[in-house]
C-alpha cells in the first residue's frame, strides 16, 4: 500500500558539494545561502515546529536559525557536519524560546490522557495497518509528542525523524552517548504508552 505521508528525500548531500556550498556561504553568497536554505528548511521548520508547538514561535525561530547560521557561517569549522551544526543552532534557539515563554510541558499533562477522546476502538473495521496511515493517528502522535518532555522529544525527533546517528545526537545536544540511547528508549516507551490503544494489535 502506498503511504499517504511520504517524506522528502533525506538530506544526503555529496560531501564535496557540501564543502563547496559551505565555502560560498562563508563568503556570504546569497545564492549559495538560498540553496542551503532550500536544502534544510523543511527539516528545520518541522523540527522547530514540533519542539515549540506554537506556529508563530516556530515561524520566528525557524527563521532565526537560518539568520544565525548566515551570521555564524565564518565560524563553522567543519568539525561536525553541516546538518549537526545547523540542528544544534535550532535546538539551542528552541530551548531559549521554551525557557523564555515557559512553555516547556511536563512529562505528561492532564490533557494528554490517551484514554480520553472520542476514539471508537471497538470498530470492527479497525486494522493496525490502516491505523498507521490514518491522519487521526498522526494527530495523536503529534499530541503525544507534545506531552513529552523537551529532553526526550529532542532525541526522539533527531533519531527517528531526522535519521541522526547516536553520536550525532550526542554531538548536537552535547550529551553522553549512553544518555542519548536511554532517552531514546524512554521517549519511544512514552509514545508507545500514549498510543497503546491504537498500537495494541501491533505490539
Amino acid at each position, binding site marked *: 500500500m502506498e503511504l499517504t*505521508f511520504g517524506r522528502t528525500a533525506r538530506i544526503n548531500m555529496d560531501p564535496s558539494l557540501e564543502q563547496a556550498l559551505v565555502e560560498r556561504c562563508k563568503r556570504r553568497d546569497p545564492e549559495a545561502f538560498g540553496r542551503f536554505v532550500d536544502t534544510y528548511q523543511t527539516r528545520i521548520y518541522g523540527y522547530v515546529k514540533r519542539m515549540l508547538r506554537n506556529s508563530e514561535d516556530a515561524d520566528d525561530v*525557524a*527563521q532565526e536559525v537560518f*539568520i544565525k547560521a548566515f551570521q555564524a557561517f565564518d565560524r563553522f569549522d567543519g568539525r561536525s557536519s553541516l546538518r549537526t551544526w545547523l540542528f544544534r543552532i535550532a535546538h539551542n534557539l528552541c530551548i531559549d524560546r521554551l525557557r523564555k515563554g515557559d512553555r516547556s510541558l511536563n512529562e505528561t499533562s492532564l490533557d494528554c490522557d490517551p484514554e480520553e477522546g472520542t476514539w471508537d476502538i471497538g470498530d470492527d473495521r479497525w486494522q493496525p495497518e490502516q491505523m498507521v496511515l490514518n491522519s487521526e493517528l498522526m494527530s495523536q502522535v*503529534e499530541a503525544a509528542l507534545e506531552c513529552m518532555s523537551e529532553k526526550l522529544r529532542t532525541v526522539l525527533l533527531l533519531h527517528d525523524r531526522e535519521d541522526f546517528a547516536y553520536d550525532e545526537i550526542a554531538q548536537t545536544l552535547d550529551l553522553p552517548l549512553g544518555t542519548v540511547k536511554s532517552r531514546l528508549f524512554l521517549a519511544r516507551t512514552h509514545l508507545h504508552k500514549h498510543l497503546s490503544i491504537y498500537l495494541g494489535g501491533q*505490539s
Partner: protein
Amino acid sequence: MNEFEETDKTIMGSLLEFEPSSEWRKQLDRELQAISLVVALPEIEPPASWRASLDERIAALAHEAVPLAGQLPDIHPTARWRGDLDAKLVALHSERKQSLIARLLRRLPEDSPNLIWRSQLNERVRVLAKPRKARPFANVFKPTAAVGLAGILMAVVIFQMRPMPVASVSAEPNVVDWMLETHEQSVAYGDLGVTQPAEYSGVAFIEEPADLSLGGI
C-alpha cells in the same frame, strides 16, 4: 575584743582540744585496711576470645556505617559496564514496540514552511548580506577629525601640566585708579601716624609724617 572575736576564739579552741575516742580510731583503721585491700586487687585481663569477638563486632559495624555524602567516593562505571549497558539499550531499541514507534515517526507529515515565511527570511538575509555603503568622504574626514581632536586634547593636557602663572599687576595699570588708591592708603597711614611701607615710599604724599613722640612736644 568584740563579741564575734570572742566566739571565733571559743570555736577554734574547742577544735584544737578535740580528742578522738579509741573506738573512732579503730573504725578508721578498719576502713583504711579495706580500702588498701581493694586497691591491691589484681587486674583482670579480658580473654583473647572476648577481644576477638569485640573486634569482629566493630568490623561488622564499620561495614554497616554509611559515610557522609561528602565523603562518598566517586563511583565511575567501568568501560565494560558502560559497553554492556549500551548494548542492552541498542537491543531494546530494536524491540518491536520501539521500532514501531520509529516507523510511525518517520511517517509523520512534513511541515514545509510557506512562501511568506521564505520571502521574509530572504528579506532578512538580504538586509544582512547588503554591503555597507562606501563613504569615501568619511574615510578622509574621520582621520582628520581624529588628528584634530588628538591635537586639542594634547594642547589641553600641556596647558594643564604647566605651572600656573602668578597673577600680577598689569604692566600698565589704570594710572588714575592707581594714584587714587595709593593716595587713599597714604592718607590712611598718615591718619594712623605710622610710616607707610616701603612700596609706597616712592609716593610720598606726606613728606613729613607727624612726630608723635614725646620728644617733639
